[in-house]
């Protein structure tokens, strides 16, 4: 698999505080990578490092296979766009002027494409209004437009829906999906709003105390979090045959338990198992949300 970003043993120390602690991460090309963690876990610190705003204390990262200490990293960064924490926009310039400034910073020969960019982010009608008078959602969208100026194929968004109203969240979500599906842009989104990420991400990285606790694809996460009935039996040899006969999808967990991804008729199941000499010790409904999965990874209190 090709990776846009890989980190190896990345550390960042601020005086006595260690923000990143041996972080290893892999962002597959073409994915929407949801970077999940609590406040203060190190999400923004990592984004600052890979954006070139700060340098690691130890460890390394590679962008498109180029190590960060290599001189070619500045060329590779041209393929990247980022919105770090707050959108970086000139508040006394209009949306169009902000994009023109970024075009000049990029050294692009003309301003072609600016109207299309504004339309893409939904700011085609703002005219000469200065960015200082934009709503938070509009500024966020302008920040993304600025990040898209150089036609990057890798976009880093640091908590892009923070502070947005529901419509704003929907707009940003649809924009992100459009960028990924239509333009093939790899997107790294950091967030602690799990519900929103679950609608977007194809891959997840869970960070806690400066380290990646787990990296998992959305498919694997869905398999883990599927609603199921967890059954504990006395004889695991018998159970698969009975479930197959009943036409139920299941997954054997260990010698005594399995997850059944259906709603079994309890009476029929227990009779069928009893006929073959197998006893049911317990049955519980198992429904792990992304939220509970995250809590189980990083710890914390459950609130039922």
């Amino acid at each position, binding site marked *: 698999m090709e990776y846009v970003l890989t980190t190896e043993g990345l550390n960042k120390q*601020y005086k006595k505080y260690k923000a990143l602690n041996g972080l290893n991460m892999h962002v597959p090309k073409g994915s929407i990578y949801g970077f999940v963690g609590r406040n203060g876990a190190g999400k923004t610190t990592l984004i*600052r490092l890979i*954006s*070139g*705003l*700060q*340098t690691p204390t130890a460890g390394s990262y590679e962008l498109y296979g180029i190590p960060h200490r290599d001189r070619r*990293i*500045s*060329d*590779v*960064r*041209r393929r*990247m*766009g*980022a919105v*770090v*924490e*707050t*959108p*970086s*926009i*000139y*508040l*006394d*310039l209009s949306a169009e*002027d902000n994009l023109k*400034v*970024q075009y000049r*910073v*990029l050294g692009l020969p003309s301003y072609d494409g600016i109207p299309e960019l504004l339309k893409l982010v939904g700011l085609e009608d703002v005219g000469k209004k200065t960015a200082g008078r934009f709503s938070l959602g509009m500024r966020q969208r302008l920040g993304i437009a*600025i*990040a898209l100026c*150089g036609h990057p194929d890798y976009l880093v968004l640091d908590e892009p829906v923070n502070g947005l109203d529901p419509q704003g969240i929907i707009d940003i979500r649809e924009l992100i999906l459009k960028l990924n599906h239509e333009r093939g842009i790899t997107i790294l989104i950091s967030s602690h709003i799990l519900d929103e990420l679950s609608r977007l991400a194809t891959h997840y990285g869970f960070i806690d105390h400066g380290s990646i606790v787990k990296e998992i694809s959305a498919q694997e996460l869905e398999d883990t979090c599927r609603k199921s009935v967890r059954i504990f039996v006395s004889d695991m040899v018998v159970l698969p045959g009975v479930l197959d006969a009943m036409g139920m999808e299941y997954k054997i967990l260990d010698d005594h338990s399995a997850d059944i991804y259906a709603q079994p008729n309890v009476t029929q199941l227990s009779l069928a198992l009893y006929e073959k000499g197998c006893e049911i010790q317990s049955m519980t409904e198992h429904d792990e949300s992304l939220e509970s999965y995250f809590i189980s990874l990083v710890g914390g209190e459950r609130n039922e």
Partner: protein
Amino acid sequence: MCRSKIFRICLLFSAGYPLFQMTLRLIERTFYYPVSEPVDTFTILDLMFLGIVLAAFVSLYLGREYSDGVIRNKLIIGHSRMSIYLANLLTVTLGAFLMHGIFFLAMFLLGRLYGLPMELGFGELAPAALLGFLFIIAYASIFTMVSMLTASGSVGPVVALIIAFFLMIMGISIYSALSDMYAEIPPELLADPGFNPLASRPKWQQVLFPLLYNALPSSQAMQLMDYVAYAGAAKAGHLSTVVIEPTVFPLLAGTSALYDLLIATFTTAIGILLFRRKDLN
């Protein structure tokens, strides 16, 4: 830069102050004092408060890069820290050049237009004005370093203005101290090229005072004002005793260039070195 409100305000000041000052002189001459002092030194008057103006301009202009966060956009797409630093330095320096140029031309043209007394011609004043560009290079380098390293749109201007006032006060203090020393010396001794006016002073004053007098952009500006006043009086034939002998212009220009370029080189090198290591948010 042209869209920057700060720059536009400074440009407005560069054109507006000459208009105000020369109109005031015209009113004075018309209604109060028929014979007025020559206005040659007014053409380079901006050099006296250049440090303060540049401290405000540079720190506010570059501070916006941090307060709006737009410096991040340049780093993210791969521009090196050195190129960002030098681009900012060049931008504010050119902006300051424009302000100084407008001020000088406005003062000169208005002085001529109003018929105010001017002893020197454009060809004699222009070299003095051009020397001001060296002061600008030194000041711009100092305040660019301050702004790029404080990384704050609010702290940077405060630090820069404190430094500007410190430099100005130090320049005035050195000038005053030397004026007082020279005032105690008979003119015939001052005229002797082999005479050291500071010979009776402690060794540290003999070294430090001339060094600061020649190195500080603020006292360089005072030297230049003295030179313009002296040259004008000499040309008009009413040269009176001056307290501090004005330096011959080429020597003044050479000394200023040396110290100003040294200041610019040193502060820029330090600034780039520290900016490279700075963690930005």
